[in-house]
């Protein structure tokens, strides 16, 4: 049986040539009729049933070609991707250069202002994040640095408030008093004012200054009567000044 299959080879290849005339042309132009492969020549051809084996060889060749096309498609796609990436990168590099150049030319003061605004915000956020992680000492340093570096920032009030909170939590009551006092005296209309005033009252009370503490707590209740802070102030007054 093996022999039979072997004998089919020439027919298979001739079938291949017929099947694809373009290929047949190339073959004959390169090597002349029978010289393509040595195994072609000789051996008598059996009849009918052999077309199966011929087609089998054709099929095999097509499979090989398909795989080769797939491999090449992969290479083309990969290269297209690399090329696109390079293009984008180059464009970005150019745009970056362009940006830097125009920046150097302009160096507008307004830009500097907005720049410092961004930096102030960053400095504040850094301190705030430290505080959220309960790293209180580091947070206090960071807030102090922020307050010194950006005294005109809109976040200064918040900075003093949180600094007061941190000192309060650390038990540094006098430092807390100073921070809350700054908010209460210098920023009477800020959203943190009520909380600061309440805390100032509590701090003063705990420092032993009962009268002034009570005064601030009552002021909170009066000035910010609708707020949750006023409720806390009332509660504190009730619990600590009831008799």
């Amino acid at each position: 049986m093996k022999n039979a299959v072997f004998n089919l080879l020439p027919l298979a290849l001739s079938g291949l040539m017929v099947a694809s005339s373009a290929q047949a042309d190339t073959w004959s132009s390169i090597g002349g009729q029978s010289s393509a492969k040595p195994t072609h020549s000789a051996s008598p051809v059996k009849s009918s049933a052999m077309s199966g084996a011929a087609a089998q060889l054709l099929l095999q060749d097509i499979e090989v070609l398909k795989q080769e096309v797939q491999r090449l498609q992969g290479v083309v796609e990969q290269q297209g991707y690399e090329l696109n990436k390079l293009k984008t990168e180059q464009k970005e590099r150019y745009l970056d250069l362009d940006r830097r150049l125009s920046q150097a030319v302009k160096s507008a003061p307004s830009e500097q202002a907005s720049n410092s605004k961004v930096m102030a915000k960053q400095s504040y956020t850094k301190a705030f994040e430290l505080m959220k992680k309960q790293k209180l000492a580091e947070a206090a340093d960071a807030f102090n640095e922020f307050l010194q570096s950006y005294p005109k920032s809109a976040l200064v009030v918040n900075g003093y408030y949180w600094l007061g909170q941190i000192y309060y939590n650390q038990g540094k009551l006098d430092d807390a008093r100073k921070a809350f006092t700054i908010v209460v005296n210098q920023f009477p209309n800020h959203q943190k004012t009520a909380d600061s005033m309440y805390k100032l009252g509590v701090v003063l009370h705990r420092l032993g200054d009962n009268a002034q503490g009570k005064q601030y707590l009552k002021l909170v209740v009066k000035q910010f009567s609708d707020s949750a802070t006023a409720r806390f102030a009332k509660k504190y007054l009730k619990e600590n000044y009831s008799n």
Partner: protein
Amino acid sequence: MELNKLFAASLLSLAMVGCASSGGTTDEAATTDAAVEESQTQGVPGSRDLDVVTEEQAAMAANSLLEQTTVYFGYDRSEIRPEFKDVLNAHAEYLVANPQARAVLEGHCDERGTVEYNLALGERRANTVKRYLIVQGANPSQIESVSFGEERPAMIGSDESVWSKNRRTEIKYQ
């Protein structure tokens, strides 16, 4: 059960007198029949006897090939490995000799890779076998292919010895 049926059928077609002639007798088959008949009736030793022995052996070999109904594949591959060509040739010959025979080809995968991609890969494995058989002369209407992906493993487990047994196409006669 299918196997037994198949074995009996192939015995009938290849070894018994005249039976195979019912469907597209080839020269080879005819000489086999003649040889068998002669050896049975006469039983005389001679030059033809040698032929008889080899032809019988060939028939036996074909039968043992027909008993192999599973071909295996490489990982993520669907082309026929050279070592399974004899098996598939035997099945093709059987289908040619028995036009009434119907085969279902079930393509399977190992568990690696995604369920859906494996369902597609299983179909490719069934289809390459189908194409091979058709090219070898089987009638397309004799063969159905179906994919079971990685859903019906022959063996359970997670190493190459198991995986290699699961990457397969099973030929099932109906």
